[in-house]
């Protein structure tokens, strides 16, 4: 199992615009849909919101990690987006500049896809990675950096 099976340059966009949380989640989920990673855009988004309603996935520091284990997922995936202008998330929270959207199918529970995604989540609390994230404008470089950080862990 390699990271490139979970995401690739088509699932990363560092130049996005959205006015609301809803628009932001929509535009990221759309990348998954257009790349055939999910079978039903609105159904998947509904599942993401189900998790989001339990507690916001805004982690602070301008990063949110909406996610779902959903029947509408064809293949475990991570979509990554950066917004040109910070997007308001929930009241009282910092606005969001980055979204890492994680999608896993229930059939993939407990296997390496999930392992990769959980390791990706752990990278998001690494200060060196966050510094890199803020600096890079190149999605290939971002992909390579994450891949490198995940290397040897799986």
């Amino acid at each position, binding site marked *: 199992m390699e990271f490139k099976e979970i995401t690739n340059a088509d699932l990363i966009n560092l130049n996005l615009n959205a006015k609301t949380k809803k628009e932001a989640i929509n535009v990221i989920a759309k990348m998954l849909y257009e790349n055939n990673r999910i079978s039903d855009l609105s159904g998947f988004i509904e599942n993401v919101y189900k998790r989001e309603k339990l*507690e916001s996935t805004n*982690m*602070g520091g301008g990063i949110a990690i909406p996610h779902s284990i959903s029947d509408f997922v064809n293949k475990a995936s991570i979509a990554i987006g950066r917004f040109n202008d910070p997007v308001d998330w929930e009241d009282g929270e910092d606005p969001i500049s980055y979204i890492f959207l*994680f999608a896993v199918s229930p059939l993939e529970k407990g296997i390496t896809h*999930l392992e990769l995604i959980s390791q990706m*989540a752990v990278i998001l*609390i690494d200060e060196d990675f966050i510094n890199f994230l803020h600096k890079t404008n190149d999605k290939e470089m971002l992909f390579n950096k994450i891949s490198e950080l995940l290397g040897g862990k799986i």
Partner: protein
Amino acid sequence: MKIIAVTSCPVGMAHTYMAAAALKKAAKKLGYDIKVETQGSMGIRDRITEAEVATADLFIDAGDVAIIDAERFDNVYRYETSTTKVIKKAEQVIKDAFELKSKE
């Protein structure tokens, strides 16, 4: 001082593992031994042993959902928190937990 902790979250995909990593990092920085058990979609990992419970000074319960076999930790001072709090401020969580315990 030894800390044991359990992390779990509703989906068990991200927060469980991020909180575990954050706790380990913070404990190391503060000079505490820690064992973190994750209860996520990959099942129970790094299960805390009876011996570890017996020598623990503090139990951090970072379960957003009810943790499995919680009664194992009944004899250890319990500090309840959430994965989100731990991810955002793990060092503060550990400090607060020990401070509360010292007031017991």
